[in-house]
């Protein structure tokens, strides 16, 4: 066996340090050179109850999604971990507390739920933590040590990350956590290994700083910073909050401004206001916030003001399921404003894509003078992946504004001048001689209110036609086909975070000899009709997996292209299972 592909699930209660342990684990293995994908699930509550799971997939080669089955489950709280015991594969292992202090009611201990094909590793986690540190708080570090010891990882990358992570809390905390880790490490090393979960050591370790571990939201922030985002207004909402939190740390250091507003209406209004003044501006929210922003987004469309809105979707409608993932805000993003208010909507499919889409969103907003919505979802926002950084500077054009022509003496500035591509040269307040009116009312080229039928028709056409340019936006992947070329039995069309699961399923189908290809559609508005039509023409069957109930993307496809597609719409609150997609591929290919 010369490959590595293992998935570890850490499961505990809020307050057990489960997510922190997952964080150290993924950073340590990334430092060793492995590719990593992780996704944390945590409760809406802060501490004391609610389930936390951190799943970490560690591979030698790049992969695209988590696996349905984990190789190792580590329980910090059996009441939460027991329902996940079945997720461990045969010959995989389950690590759990063998000496709980409290009495366990019958059936509440993990040992009673381990299937015959799985390997039980009862370890006295609390006792080890107490012996090593004098308290049970570092049980999560003990667990981390057990994992590292069991899998034969070097302890050094873990130790370095522990030192860094806890440095601010003082030397005592660092040394206690290191001692906890060490005692777990020895226990893991001394455990007689019965499972068959192996990690092949990496031959080469990436140069420091070349490969980074980022969450989707962190990548968005990195993209914003590299695109020189200047002003950000936001109101916290899961799962978008961490975008604002991270920007709040990063922006002031570079002299940029961030303001937490009183609500989402205020946030978008301020963003549009800043955009109007020429400041590069953005906000971030989730479905309920997007609903509140709908009217203001219409203003940005009408007044042709660049602004970027990051929308991280969660289970809806309404407050819905704040800590569960879903892709059900597509319709709201595409159509959620009154009037004919088309805007650009793009949806990255992985963490690296979050970075690129974030930066490109500003380019597009400025180039086409329009709101741009970047559609994320909880799975993508919170998922961590190893990302290889580009060697040269940020790949974004920071001067995408259509240049202003010098006005002739006495010439009047037409802010909404009709041009071939529909984009008018834009002046911002203060540009000499460029005084103009900006309003939400329909207006003429000068910006003055005008509701004549000819004007409204011409302006509507202008506002829509200029967006078509985005389909050829430089250095931007609007769609991408992967997999078998030419005619295929099954084509998978997907958008957003689900595309990773689609790729995994497609590669599994390839291994079974099924001819199939997948296309990701990153730009959802304006819609790349030609590229998608061409792809559909190549496929006997088109499968559209998405995590929403209505099949919103499938509806979009059918509305625009009037072609039959096979819908695979599910709302489990979690990513679409790869096996489900694979099952559909097999069925469509006639392989079952």
């Amino acid at each position, binding site marked *: 066996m010369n490959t590595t592909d293992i998935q570890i699930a850490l499961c505990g209660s809020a307050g057990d340090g489960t997510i922190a342990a997952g964080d150290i684990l993924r950073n340590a293995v990334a430092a060793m050179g492995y590719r990593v994908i992780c996704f944390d699930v945590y409760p809406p509550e802060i501490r004391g109850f609610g389930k936390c799971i951190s799943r970490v997939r560690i591979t030698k080669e790049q992969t695209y999604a988590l696996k349905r089955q984990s190789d190792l489950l580590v329980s910090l709280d059996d009441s939460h971990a027991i329902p996940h015991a079945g997720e461990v594969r*045969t*010959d995989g292992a389950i690590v759990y*507390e*063998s*000496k*709980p*202090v*409290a*009495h*366990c*009611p*019958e059936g*509440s*201990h993990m*040992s*009673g739920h*381990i*299937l*015959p*094909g799985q*390997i*039980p*590793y*009862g370890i006295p986690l609390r006792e080890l933590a107490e012996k090593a540190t004098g308290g049970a708080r570092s049980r999560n570090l003990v667990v981390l040590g057990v994992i590292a010891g069991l899998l034969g990882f070097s302890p050094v990358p873990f130790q370095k990350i522990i030192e860094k992570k806890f440095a601010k809390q003082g030397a005592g905390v660092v040394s206690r956590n290191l001692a906890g880790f060490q005692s777990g490490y020895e226990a893991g090393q001394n455990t*007689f290994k*019965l499972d068959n979960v192996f990690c092949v050591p990496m031959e080469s370790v990436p140069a420091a700083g070349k490969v980074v571990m980022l969450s989707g939201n962190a990548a968005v922030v990195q993209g914003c910073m590299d695109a020189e985002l200047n002003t950000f207004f936001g109101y916290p909402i899961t799962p978008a909050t961490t975008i604002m939190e991270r920007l709040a740390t990063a922006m002031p250091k570079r002299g940029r401004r961030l303001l937490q507003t009183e609500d989402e209406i205020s946030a978008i209004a301020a963003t549009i206001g800043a955009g109007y003044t020429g400041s590069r501006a953005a906000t971030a929210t989730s479905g309920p916030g997007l609903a509140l922003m709908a009217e203001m987004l219409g203003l940005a469309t009408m007044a042709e003001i660049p602004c970027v809105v990051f929308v991280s979707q969660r289970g809806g409608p309404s407050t819905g399921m704040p800590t569960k993932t879903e892709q059900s805000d597509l319709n709201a993003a595409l159509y959620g404003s009154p009037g004919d208010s088309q805007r650009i909507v793009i949806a990255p499919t992985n963490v690296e894509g979050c970075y690129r889409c974030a930066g490109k969103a500003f380019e597009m907003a400025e180039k086409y003078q329009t709101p741009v919505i970047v559609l994320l979802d909880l799975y993508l926002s919170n998922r961590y992946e190893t990302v290889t950084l580009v060697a040269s500077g940020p790949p974004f054009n920071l001067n995408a504004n259509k240049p202003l022509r010098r006005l002739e003496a006495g010439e009047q500035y037409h802010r909404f001048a009709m041009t071939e591509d529909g984009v008018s040269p834009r002046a911002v307040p203060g540009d000499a001689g460029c005084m103009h009116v900006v309003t939400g009312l329909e207006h003429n080229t000068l910006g003055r209110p005008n509701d004549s039928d000819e004007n409204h028709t011409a302006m509507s056409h202008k506002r829509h036609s200029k967006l078509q340019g985005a389909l050829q936006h430089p250095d931007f992947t609007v769609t991408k086909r992967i997999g078998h070329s030419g005619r295929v039995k099954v084509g998978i069309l997907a958008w957003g975070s689900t595309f990773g699961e689609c790729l995994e399923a497609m590669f599994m189908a390839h291994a079974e000899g099924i001819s199939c290809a997948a296309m990701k559609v990153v730009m959802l508005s304006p819609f790349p009709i030609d590229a998608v039509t061409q792809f559909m023409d190549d496929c006997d069957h088109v499968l559209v997996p998405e995590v929403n109930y209505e099949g919103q993307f499938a509806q979009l496809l059918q509305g625009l292209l009037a072609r039959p597609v096979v819908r695979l719409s599910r709302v489990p609150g979690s990513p679409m299972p790869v096996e489900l997609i694979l099952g559909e591929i097999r069925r469509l290919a006639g392989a079952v």
Partner: protein
Amino acid sequence: MVAQVSSSASSPHRYVIIGNGVAGNQAAEGLRERDPDGLITIITNSRMLFYNRYLLPQLFRAHQDWRALLAYPPGHYEKHRIRVLRDCWVTAVDSRKRQVMLAHNEAISYDTLLVATGGRPYLPEELVECRHLIHPFGTYEHALAVRKALPENGSVVMLGGDMIGLDLARTLLDLSYRVILVTHENTFWPHQPVGEERSKFLAILQKMGLEVVDGDAMGGVVAIEKGAAGLPERRVRFRQGGDIYGDIVMSFYGLSPLVEFMMKSGTDIERGLLVGTNLRTSDPHIYAAGDVCQIWSEKDNVYRFYYGHRNVRAMGAVAALNMTGGNEHFSTTQDEALFQNEQGHIDSPFWAYD
């Protein structure tokens, strides 16, 4: 023959078996056959499913993954709905509440309990302090550790030499290792040849290639130490001097029944759990089978142990029948005498595995 169904789907009978060995597994199978709806739970302190320990010496011939030694594939337990709690230590049985207490602070309730915990290797008092210098040999993990510690053509000092040890010894000799047997009254355990017969079998062992040291004549082993530099790893010291050396030391003094956790249960215990031929203990809800129990022998007028695979399996089957309302009696069908086989080697029904 499915003669009796003692529980219904609405209130299934809870059978708990402590021990995942030959007796426990045979009983579990029998219980399932007799009571399709019963809840069957096996509890074991081992992390592994039931595997064939009789085959452990074969690991010296060729390494085998432990999965190859499993008596049943994992699917067997799922198919028969037998729950196996592994890595769980039973610390006590509360016969009043009918609960099995586990080391991790959980109590498992039973309607009928079978104790099938077998035995642990017996170690004479004077050697307990040197235990860390002795290689145990009861599990797959132990066998791999011995294999690792033993250099090619290396030497093993085998203390005692019960039939488990002698089984290993014959394999090691075959593979050109040196085996130095230090005799003890438990040599040949569970057989007890005496006088001339014992001498005859010792002579056969020598012919087979074992180096036999008369432990009694040397006053018995008093200590085991690390060998000095340039000498083999271990030094075995005798009361009357005349140390011997080996790369590893192993002890095989027979097994003693694992019953400590039953001490406060109120059931009758002598050395093992005392049972009638129906394998029921003095508590009507508790049965015992395998190496852990002493069965009443009408013939000998004593409670006695019956060893060997065939006996232990038969006990598991009888226990299952009686736990589900039957009235069966255990009687041995196994020959108990040590003998010399056609190759001139010693042989024993204890080594038969079927």
